[in-house]
């Protein structure tokens, strides 16, 4: 493994009864730039994110972030060591303001004594101020600064997505996993989100993995692409190379007979 590898999975397998969702998959995602995770439906992309974020326990294999193994960690431990995800469907606290929704992301930051927080003294006070600042920064970064006090229900779909992304980056993650962030968005919104993601990655420098079916967006967004199919690793490399790869062509873009695999 080289220095610039942010996230590395090794020999991952996940089975659900007769279905093999991941079949000894090994691949790497660089720490710089944004990686795309591609593959036909049911290829195991979401499952891979689930394993990395701790929502799914693999039957074999390991996950490493910047060289350290996450094997025994639960979801919370992973968040604390910097692995954060979003969901295929947006999940927000509908009764709290956008600000509070994003503030939730501070969980990933260092803990501090709850008693001190309640009393508002010493480190507790400092920590509360820090949480506040971090939240403001995260909101500004995705361009939601002016909407901080609004309720999520009042926001259009694309903005709701951004709230979720702001929440994910508030904790300054080392690895950010986005599952189809652009699904259901119109083209304008996709382009705007694309800019935001590039900017966030640029300024925070985390390993970012994006699952996306819109190949045009993937080409604009990603510097590196990993392709899965039928639970197995297929190919990895720069987007243009991957798009041209005949194996990917067959399983993903569709030579006519490939769908009856």
């Amino acid at each position, binding site marked *: 493994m080289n220095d610039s590898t942010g996230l590395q999975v090794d020999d991952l397998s996940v089975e659900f009864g007769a279905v093999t969702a991941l079949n000894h998959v090994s691949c790497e995602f660089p720490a710089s730039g944004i990686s795309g995770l591609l593959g036909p*439906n049911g*290829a195991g992309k*979401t499952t891979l994110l689930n394993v990395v974020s701790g929502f799914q326990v693999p039957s074999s294999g390991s996950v490493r972030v910047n060289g350290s193994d996450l094997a025994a960690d639960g979801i919370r431990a992973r968040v604390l060591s910097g692995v954060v995800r979003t969901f295929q469907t947006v999940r927000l606290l509908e009764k709290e303001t956008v600000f509070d929704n994003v503030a939730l992301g501070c969980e990933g930051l260092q803990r501090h004594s709850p008693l001190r927080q309640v009393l508002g003294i010493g480190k507790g006070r400092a920590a509360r101020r820090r949480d506040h600042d971090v939240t403001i920064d995260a909101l500004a970064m995705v361009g939601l600064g002016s909407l901080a006090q609004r309720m999520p229900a009042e926001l*259009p779909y694309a903005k709701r997505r951004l709230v979720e992304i702001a929440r994910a980056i508030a904790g300054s993650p080392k690895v950010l996993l986005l599952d189809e962030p652009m699904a*259901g968005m119109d083209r304008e919104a996709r382009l705007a989100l694309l800019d935001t993601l590039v900017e966030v990655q640029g300024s925070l420098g985390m390993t970012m993995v994006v699952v996306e079916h819109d190949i045009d967006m993937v080409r604009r967004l990603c510097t590196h692409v990993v392709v899965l199919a039928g639970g197995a690793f297929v190919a990895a490399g720069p987007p243009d190379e991957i798009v041209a790869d005949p194996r990917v062509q067959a399983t993903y873009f569709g030579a006519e007979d490939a769908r009856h695999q």
Partner: protein
Amino acid sequence: MLAINDLNAWYGQTQALFDVTLTVETGQTVALVGTNGAGKTTLVRSILGLVRSTGTIQFDGAELSTVPPHRRSRKHGMSVVPEGRGMLNSLTVQENLELGYRRLSAQDRDFIERSFPRLSRRLAEKVSNLSGGEQQMVALCRAFIRRPKFLILDEPSLGLAPIVVDDVYSQLREAWSSGTTLLVEQDVERARQASDVMFFIAAGHILGTARSSDKAEVDRMTRAAFMDSSAVRG
């Protein structure tokens, strides 16, 4: 076949559609294009009778506004691929397909085997176990096997790999060339190719319409629909 007149629709106090008027001829595929939040899904839901609305919706000569939603499906042969897939997570794939007192016939099974082989192997499984795209296939399949008179597709390509999207659209072209279809699609070019007529919608208003074959007009309307909305949204 479908004639909508002066349709206004509300969610609670907020109005989502304003005086929408639109017609779909028998056999036509009509595409609905607009930004997020423009009101496309609301229009679909109004046709299905799922939102509070005023105005008239005539279908095959019958007035629908007093017809309860379940009869629109049963009696008038409407079928929908809903936004967000509409999976019934506690049910199996087969039960999702059978929804509404309908058993899978041999013919249906055949169709599934041919068009969605991934599904035919997993009919007995809980639908919530499927991947996002696989669930979208269930949604499509559920609408298709009913052989509807009027097919409504709300973002049918959501979460589908390109290979499957192509496949779905080619099916639409071939198998449903005779059927009447209302299509909501984010990818304007794809929508243009799949449809006969396009309606452009922004902030709850129909901005205009264009024949799909007239590419220049479609481009002009698309720009209008998308710019307008960004103006409205600020």
